[in-house]
């Protein structure tokens, strides 16, 4: 019998890619129609929250951001994933991030990787050597990329040093910024700062921040962050989403740490840029951001089996993952596909070879975001603290306040 499944997804490229998967799926499953309900990124979470909370049967499949999984699962919004679905071919860290309380609630669709973009011309103009990285016109095998990532990775100290030299001021106004991060103050982007220095953001129980977020490691990381804005003044304050890439594309920004998703946009500009691995702190360990989108099944859905089947197709089948990857060009979690990236000659050239950097990081240095039902609270407290720090609030105050806020809010979830 004919069935229609509804899936909420994010508007834009993700919807296009999902549509490609849906089209492929439909060819094999004529009885099932899948209807995508897309929402703008900025409102997706709010709408999803409202609709899931109202036990809306109009949603079968849910596009889930990794860190929200625990929150959704803990409130019973998602059905446990059918154990019959094999996750053996997926990157284990990604599979794990789909679990809450030992149960699998969602399957990873793709992964993310962060890199350091740099403007070669600006480095040249400033007379400094850019970091080792992948650049236009050069090719790189997976082995070469592995070497680059394991031994030629810049430290944040090097970044700061270069950024100061790259920053150009005219009449007290900055005309060229040395460095910025793409996601200003976001946990996803900055988590490696503290973790590189040895401390996770919160404790393993998911509700304790004291001793973690205000640890020495995080204090040092936050001080570095503060210096970027307040001491060295190499970074622009309060950039919105996408504005770092715009600045970089205008040649007004020498370096920024951002996702691989910026490649198509930046390749379309005439900036001559290179891509280096995500930096780490000197003396610390190499840690990179990871984690992206998952698919889950709405617990209120009347079409559990069909929804599970599509989720499985999307994440664990050759055809499904390929359709997704071909359309969106995001780092996969499906190992056969990762192998293709590593080995296929299609990925030798820049900027395709940047994915190989992602492959290395996702297998070696990636640290998933903390799993906690209070992730929203954590993210908010964290962002508030780091934005405040950038705006000049003393590091210790900001961190202490973040700890207090997170713990009191998390306590309400933990009770």
């Amino acid at each position, binding site marked *: 019998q004919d069935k229609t499944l509804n899936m909420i997804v994010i508007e834009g*490229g993700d919807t296009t890619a999902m549509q490609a998967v849906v089209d492929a799926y439909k060819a094999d499953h004529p009885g099932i129609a899948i209807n995508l309900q897309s929402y703008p990124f900025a409102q997706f979470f709010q*709408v999803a929250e409202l609709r899931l909370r109202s036990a809306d049967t109009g949603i079968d499949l849910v596009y889930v951001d990794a860190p929200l999984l625990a929150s959704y699962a803990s409130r019973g919004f998602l059905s446990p994933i059918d154990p019959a679905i094999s996750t053996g071919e997926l990157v284990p860290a990604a599979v794990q991030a789909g679990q809450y309380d030992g149960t699998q609630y969602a399957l990873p669709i793709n992964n993310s990787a962060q890199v350091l973009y740099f403007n070669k011309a600006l480095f040249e103009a400033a007379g400094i050597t850019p970091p080792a990285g992948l650049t236009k016109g050069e090719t790189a095998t997976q082995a070469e990329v592995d070497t680059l990532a394991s031994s030629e990775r810049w430290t944040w100290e090097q970044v700061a040093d270069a950024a100061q030299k790259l920053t150009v001021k*005219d009449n007290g106004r900055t005309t060229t910024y040395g460095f910025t991060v793409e996601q200003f103050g976001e946990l996803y982007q900055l988590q490696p700062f503290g973790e590189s220095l040895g401390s996770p953001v919160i404790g393993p129980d998911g509700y304790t921040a004291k001793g973690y977020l205000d640890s020495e490691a995080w204090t040092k990381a936050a001080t570095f962050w503060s210096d970027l804005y307040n001491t060295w003044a190499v970074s622009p304050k309060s950039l919105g989403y996408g504005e770092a890439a715009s600045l970089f594309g205008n040649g007004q920004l020498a370096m920024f740490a951002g996702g691989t998703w910026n490649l198509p946009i930046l390749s379309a500009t005439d900036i001559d840029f290179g891509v280096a691995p995500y930096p780490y702190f000197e003396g610390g360990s190499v840690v990179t951001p990871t984690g992206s989108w998952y698919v889950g099944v709405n617990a209120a859905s009347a079409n559990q089996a069909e929804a599970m089947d599509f989720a499985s197709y999307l994440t664990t089948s050759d055809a499904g993952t390929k359709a997704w990857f071909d359309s969106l060009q995001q780092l996969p979690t499906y190992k056969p596909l990762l192998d293709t990236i590593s080995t296929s000659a299609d990925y030798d050239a820049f900027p395709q070879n940047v994915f190989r950097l992602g492959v290395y990081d996702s297998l070696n240095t990636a640290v998933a975001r903390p799993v906690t039902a209070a992730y929203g609270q954590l993210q908010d407290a964290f962002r508030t603290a780091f934005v405040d720090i950038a705006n000049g609030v003393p590091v210790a105050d900001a961190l202490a306040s973040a700890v207090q806020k997170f713990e009191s809010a998390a306590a309400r979830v933990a009770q």
Partner: protein
Amino acid sequence: MTARTAKPGKVLSFGLKHLAYLLIAFIFVLPLWWAIVSSLRPNGAIFADIFPFTPKALLPTPFTTEAYTGIFERGFGLIIANTMLVAFVTMIAGLIVNGAAGFAFAMFDFKGKKIVLSAIIISFMLPFEAIALPLYTVTQQLGWLDNIAALIVPSIANGLAVFLFYQFFSQVPKDYAEAARLDGVSWLNILLRIYVPLSLPTCISAALLLFIFQWEAFLWPLLTMPSQQFKVIQVGMAAFQQQYQTIWNQLFAVSVITALIPIALLLPLQRYYVQGLAGAGIKG
């Protein structure tokens, strides 16, 4: 206050007056001007002259109308038409429903009037976010999801508009209604043919209130139109701010169009604001 014709000595104050008006107008216009300029630039060049600011930021260089062609290729024409439909239907239905209620409150004394009126006034002091979820459930139960009824019907009754009509209908001299009563005119016609024409500025204000409410509606259409077949402007605009990048010039192009439409609709009505009718039929 009477208009005074300019005398030589008054040229200075005349100039000062224009200067003051210009300054205020400048503050009002600047953001929109900047949006217009930005909408006429290629997406990549939006921030070119802004960080740091140079006067060139206020000129559309390099110039392109690609944003405008772009938004219409994306089907923004339809989205604007959708929004107009929703806004106009809400406006007209809202004028009728709220006008009738305001009229009843202004015209009659009845038991419980104060309480009902207070409840209505209170109803607009409720944050929409607080009721979004239960309201969504109500809409769902009515089976209105993905139906434009969900966009329109809940927004028709508006406590603010009732209050507005009540305030102004109360100021219309009672004599008109009494004269019409003696003439055997029905209450409906008294409302439509006497009170409404006499309170035109108020009706326009109320229409504007209802129109703008829908014109700016965002969260609600987003929730109740899950299949996104029928999009309204604010929802369509949000799509320009994507996960990984923002299409600035198109965003501004749409902003400019959405800003100019209500103003264009309001312009011909401006004259009702500077010529009052009140009391013109009374006394010698």
